């Protein structure tokens, strides 16, 4: 019997059918203290979830569902490092990475020492590189670090370092991920072999995308460096769970940073995969990010369900998806520094919950992960917001914005500081206006100009639910909190849906078939058994 036939699920279904599914958001806001009731604050993070189509009754029933699904014990099992990833027979201990040795039990406690030792090794590298004392083959200091990785070994560090761009770093960071080589060839034209260090980041150290880019980087270095040992010892650092594979590739032991198979790729920015983040903001900044995430972990583990931010966000998503039938979610940061956050969450959420069999291997009969996408809000307003306001799709939105910006001086009321302050206010005004119009629709139109909107083309149905997350500022700490929040809320949904969020079998077959297809490109006769479309496409590129 799946969750959909459970009593808590049926209670929600009934609640929905008895009117909760029909009531318009604007009506819900007749409740005067709604914003106060449906919001929660933790440290530097504030969540307003009042613009969701829920009542106190809905939340109560959702929490019943969570309890029925044994969410509290699942949370403890996750945080204690129990084997929550059953198909791969291992725990998912990303939270252990940021515990700093404190407040953990079980397996999560026993790995603390290994984690700290590895972070110390990483700290040594970081301070040497940032101090200009990591030398290239000619003796010049390294000035540019290129991270070669894909998926979790790319997106996390890319998203974070971009988000923290206002923090000055002595090192220029670059990212190469795509297998096609275009990024690599464009980047290498701008860099100098004497002062460039490559970080090879790959959990398995067999990822073809990464290794093929690494070979190109190596060829490029060989143009200038005669001694192969110097080339490897001064210009390559490896980050992997497989030290023996790094050694085999030629990375000297001193240049190896390890992490462990119990760190999922999409959760790996908290591990040594976060090396580029530490190079950007220093090891202290990196640890601030871990501490921020740890604040969320501790909250997730201890706060009652009805005040637990990841739990509330996860349950409301479940309500939206399974009861209100909303199958799309937009991530809308109102700060260009968070440009890569939507892509990061796309991976985190869809690779985790984009599944259709439960933990028992049975097909689920309900919807799981929605389609998730996003863009920097003010830019998206000029693109897909049309669909949000007037399309035929119901979409839930997460608006994310910093309360303060730290890249200008607020006390200065002239020049660029003044105009940047003005721009920040404008961005916030847009953020709040959009969520309001999505909620209220026509009801947001002021009485005085109602007449101008008297046209079927100017009709706004509203009733699109949204969350608004305000961060005090964009910092390592608040970003740590935010990412950990989404990790945990994704886990909450998986518990309700009874699926394993920590494997990703869906991406395996494609990799395998790519190898076969590559062989067929090299030797066309191997394509004989392929379908006609693939055969045709191969013909077009084989010359």
């Amino acid at each position: 019997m799946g969750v959909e036939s459970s009593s808590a699920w049926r209670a929600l279904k009934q609640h929905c059918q008895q009117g909760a599914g029909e009531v318009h958001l604007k009506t819900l806001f007749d409740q005067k203290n709604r914003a106060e009731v449906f919001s929660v604050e933790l440290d530097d993070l504030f969540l307003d979830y009042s613009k969701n189509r829920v009542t106190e009754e809905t939340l109560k029933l959702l929490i019943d569902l969570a309890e029925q699904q044994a969410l509290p014990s699942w949370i403890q099992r996750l945080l204690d490092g129990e084997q929550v990833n059953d198909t791969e027979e291992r725990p998912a201990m990303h939270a252990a990475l940021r515990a700093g040795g404190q407040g953990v039990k079980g397996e999560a406690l026993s790995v603390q020492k290994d984690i700290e030792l590895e972070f110390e090794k990483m700290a040594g590298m970081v301070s040497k590189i940032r101090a200009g004392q990591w030398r290239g083959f000619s003796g010049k200091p390294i000035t540019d670090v290129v991270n070669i990785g894909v998926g979790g070994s790319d997106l996390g560090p890319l998203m974070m370092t971009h988000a923290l761009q206002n923090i000055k770093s002595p090192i220029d960071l670059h990212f190469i991920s795509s297998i096609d080589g275009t990024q690599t060839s464009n980047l290498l034209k701008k860099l100098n072999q004497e002062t460039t260090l490559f970080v090879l980041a790959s959990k398995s150290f067999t990822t073809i995308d990464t290794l093929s880019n690494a070979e190109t980087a190596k060829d490029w270095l060989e143009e200038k460096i005669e001694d192969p040992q110097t080339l490897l010892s001064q210009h390559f650092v490896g980050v992997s769970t497989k030290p023996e594979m790094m050694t085999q590739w030629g990375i000297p032991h001193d240049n190896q940073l390890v992490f462990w198979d119990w760190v999922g790729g999409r959760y790996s920015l908290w591990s040594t995969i976060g090396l580029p983040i530490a190079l950007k903001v220093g090891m202290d900044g990196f640890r601030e990010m871990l501490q921020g995430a740890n604040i969320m972990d501790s909250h997730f583990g201890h706060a009652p369900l009805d005040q637990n931010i990841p739990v509330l966000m996860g349950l409301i998503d479940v309500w939206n998806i399974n009861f209100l039938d909303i199958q799309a979610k937009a991530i809308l940061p109102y700060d260009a520094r968070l440009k890569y956050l939507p892509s990061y969450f796309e991976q985190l959420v869809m690779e985790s919950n984009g599944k259709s069999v439960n933990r028992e291997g049975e097909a689920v009969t309900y919807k799981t992960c929605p389609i998730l996408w996003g863009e920097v809000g003010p830019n998206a307003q000029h693109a897909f917001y049309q669909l949000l306001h007037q399309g035929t799709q119901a979409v839930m939105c997460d608006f994310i914005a910093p309360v303060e910006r730290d890249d200008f001086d607020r006390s200065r009321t002239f020049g660029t500081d003044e105009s940047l302050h003005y721009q920040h206010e404008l961005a916030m005004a847009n953020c709040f206006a959009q969520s309001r119009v999505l909620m209220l629709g026509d009801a947001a139109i002021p009485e005085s100009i109602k007449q101008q909107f008297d046209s079927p083309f100017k009709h706004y149905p509203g009733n699109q639910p949204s969350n608004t997350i305000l961060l005090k500022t964009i910092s390592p700490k608040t970003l740590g909190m935010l990412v950990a929040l989404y990790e945990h809320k994704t886990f909450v949904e998986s518990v309700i849906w009874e699926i394993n969020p920590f494997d990703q079998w869906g991406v395996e077959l494609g990799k395998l078939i790519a190898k076969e297809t590559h062989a067929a490109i090299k030797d066309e006769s191997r394509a004989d058994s392929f379908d006609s479309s693939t055969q045709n496409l191969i013909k077009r590129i084989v010359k």
Partner: protein
Amino acid sequence: MKVSVYGCELSGLVTAGALAQTGNEIVALPIGIAKVEDLRQGILPRNEPGLEALVTLQMQEGRLHFEDDWKAGVAHGEVLILSMPSWRLERAEEIIKVIGECAKGDVLVVNQSSFPIGTADRFEAQLKLAFAERGLVANVSVVAMPEFISEGSAINDFVKPDRIVLGSHDLKAIKLVKDLMRPYNRVTDQVKVMSTRAAEYTKYAVNALLATRISLVNELANNAEHFDIDMEEVRQGLGSDHRIGFNYLYPGCGFGGPSFAADVKNLVGTLQSKGYDADLLKAVLSNNESQKEVLFRKAWRFFNTDLKNKTIAVWGLSFKPNTSTVENAPSINTIRAFVEQGAEVRAYDPQAMNDFSEHWTNPHSINMVGDMYEALEGADALVILTEWKAFWNPDFKRMKKQMDNLVIFDGRNIYDPDVVMEQGFRYFGVGRGEVI
């Protein structure tokens, strides 16, 4: 003439001493760390050839007094000289404030310090405003007279100047300052009168041009190596061109010092903060920072990137000979680079070891030794960073006995490569010697 000199660092003491020598009555007032009690006993904050003797003699003769009270300086001087390091601008502002508050009549301020362009004009306007507020009717003039002295030859530079640059629009002030400087301006008229801003800019321009010249020569020398060319031969060819001349043509391991390098940095800072172009000067500075590590890079390649537990002897820490100063000196960058790679450093300098210890903030410790040969004990290489005279003709036999590995990295090209190589040394200069 009665003159007050604010600032008792190198420039202030040289100015005070030299002006006292020509019969002026001088009150000198320290504005930084130097203490009046020390100064009165002839204990000076700077080692400079001849300076202690000059200052002591003038005190004995009764023409030079050290005072603490800035107001006493205002009361004493017909001419008030500001002579302080460029980073002491705040102190100068305070002094101007004191002058504005307590001057009783006409005021002539001469600024020798390298403050931002426009400072003299600004000080003059501030003083005029202060006088107006007090209802005092008096002449106010702030003159720019940049100093062009170099450490090691400072007194001579002051008393036998190439030229005296005098920036002012006030004929009376010009006449007075010219008269003060008359003893140093006898053979031909060396005084170049111009606007205050032009005078201030001239100082920066001189250092910018010299710094550019040094960095360019260094770049040419580094590249000469790639073509197996001896830069010394090229230097001869270059210097004999009368349009170029021989001064500031020696390649080396980078320039430093408290004023020269700082002036260029300040100029670049000023230009950048206003959004003006400073591309060339920025390149000059970054080229120089890199050049400070040129010997480290040679050693790094020589030892095939493995400097761990190698013993590196260092001769010379000061930014140039005859000074105890290591500010902005290549020694700091070079030694830091070596110790960060796990090398041990044994260093000797005739004067600058104390100053080096004060500037050394790295957690790794280095050995300072009291004798140049002692530094060579068990050394895997010798690195020469300052061309002190004592290093020019050392006892090579003794050196060979002390050193484990006969390699010299010469950052000042003080040896003839053929001679040291005949002695059995590997020799790497800047644009000379072996190529690596």
